């Protein structure tokens, strides 16, 4: 019993430490960039130079806030999908959500309705549509178990939306729309602005709070449906709520940042490594790790080279390396 209380205190302490580290890095990274020269620079001319104030408050700070928000939402979403499908290899991309959102956003770009709200609505709609299609197809397939059918239907739906996206790229105007779509596909926070953040922050925060509210219940939803029913849950209803919330949050983020791969896949693994499998702790842990990860990726992306490296490229590269390391590490025998 003492071990239990000690373990809970340890996990809470670790969560607080990671939160503090994220805030500290966010503050430090505000001073990292290529203005007025590459590296860390304190804004000594803050009071006299309007350009300095603009760069710090209107360019870097929104990026940092968006990186933290995106990291938390994408991680929470990936974690939720993994728990609901009881499969540590699932993330929204596996069920066509990312490709559906990409198609929705690109469609608006070529139709000339590239306002933030139009892109967000379309990305969210097609992301949800992809999820519904994957789920429906999985119930219709007559091959293999439920998870296999779900993954197969996700692959099929992803492929359909990818093909449709390729068609859009073919017909897109090469000097404007095609470039926009290509950059959007690589993911990036260079467009971050307070206005854009303001357009999604309330819904995304609501999505995060709902997922956090379900953080312990997610453990039960990862069990067989009959078992979670027997301990007093309504698993079908809870699953639908969480899937819709996770998808809406993800697509809203994607509609601004473009595709940022791997975050939703690897951070839940890191969260479980650090906090154990109990989702009451590993979900918030994964979210903070996700925020940290994107914060670091974005800062590297905008400081390493004279031209910016898209965050989606860096997150995929670093994510794949971390994934290989996680899978190569041997778990301590018998430890949960």
């Amino acid at each position, binding site marked *: 019993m003492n071990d239990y209380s000690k373990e809970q205190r340890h996990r809470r302490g670790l969560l607080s430490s990671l939160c503090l580290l994220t805030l500290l890095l966010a503050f430090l990274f505000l001073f990292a960039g290529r203005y007025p020269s590459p590296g860390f620079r304190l804004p000594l001319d803050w009071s006299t130079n309007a350009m300095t104030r603009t760069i710090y408050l209107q360019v870097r700070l929104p990026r940092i806030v968006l990186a933290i928000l995106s990291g938390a939402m994408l991680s929470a979403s990936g974690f939720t999908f993994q728990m609901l499908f009881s*499969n540590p290899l699932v993330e929204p991309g596996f069920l066509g959500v990312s490709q559906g959102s990409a198609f929705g956003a690109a469609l608006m770009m070529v139709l000339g309705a590239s306002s933030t709200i139009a892109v967000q609505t379309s990305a969210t709609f097609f992301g949800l549509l992809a999820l519904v299609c994957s789920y429906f197809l999985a119930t219709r397939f007559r091959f293999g178990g439920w998870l296999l059918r779900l993954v197969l239907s996700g692959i099929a739906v992803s492929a359909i939306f990818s093909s449709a996206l390729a068609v859009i790229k073919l017909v897109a105007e090469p000097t404007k729309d095609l470039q926009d779509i290509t950059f959007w596909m690589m993911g990036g926070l260079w467009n971050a602005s307070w206005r854009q953040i303001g357009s999604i922050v309330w819904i995304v925060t609501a999505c995060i709070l709902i997922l956090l509210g379900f953080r*312990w*219940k997610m453990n039960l939803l*990862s069990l067989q449906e009959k078992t979670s*029913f*027997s*301990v*007093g849950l309504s698993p079908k209803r809870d699953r639908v709520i969480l899937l819709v919330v996770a998808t809406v949050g993800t697509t809203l983020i994607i509609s601004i940042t473009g595709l940022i791969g791997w975050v939703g896949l690897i951070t839940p693994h890191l969260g479980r490594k650090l906090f154990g499998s109990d989702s009451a702790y590993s979900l918030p842990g994964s979210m903070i790790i996700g925020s940290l990860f994107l914060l670091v990726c974005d800062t590297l992306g905008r400081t390493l080279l004279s031209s910016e490296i898209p965050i989606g490229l860096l997150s995929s590269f670093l994510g794949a390396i971390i994934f290989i390391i996680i899978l190569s590490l041997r778990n301590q025998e018998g*430890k949960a």
Partner: protein
Amino acid sequence: MNALEVHDLSFTYPSGSVALKHITLSIKEGSSVAILGSNGAGKSTLLDLLLGWKEDSRIILRGRSLQSYGRKELGRTLALVPQSEQYNFSFSVLDYVLFGRSPYLSSLGTPGEKDALIAYAALKEVGLSEYAQRSITNLSGGEHQLLLLARAIAQESNILLLDEPTSALDPANRKKVLGLLKSLHAKNRTLLFTTHDANLAYELATHVAMLKNGELICYGEKEKVVTSEMLTTLYDTHMHVALVGQTTLIY
């Protein structure tokens, strides 16, 4: 009061296959009932219906229609011990037993110290308390069955529904699980378990219900219904009930 009553219960799957035909039975509070039958007889379907997993208005739980129970209220009244459980995440043994506390928590609540104490007590009861911080993926088959029982004990429901509780166990673990179930029954819990093992049914049950092709062919006190003739009819093969010393042996 009857713990469970079933009136003229039939069930047909969407595919058209008939699983249960006109089942009527009453299960007294504190009794131990074996649902005995061969594979495909409809035992698991009946258990699913009694759990509320498949909805039916012809099931009465403690004097009220099963459908009138809220999800949490039902979880506090009935607990399920499945035959097995698949895990893809390595929860600790204690975390897993704490899942049984779900019906007592608010919708978005998490277990507290009191729940942890109850879960520890359940682990102690099944003899797994020293494994509390271990991963469930490192338990043996026998320990795993004890873990499922511990979760049901932590759920503090008076009625336990058990699906083939000893079917995958070696003799030593079978004996251990059987001992635990007997002690739970001695504490006035109502047990309802499916099995195709007539010896287990005779050893653990006070009453036996025999299911064949979805029909209840007999139900009553075990001494009255477990006979060579009835078992032979049930399994379509010659079965004998013999008294060897103080022990009834079925072969």
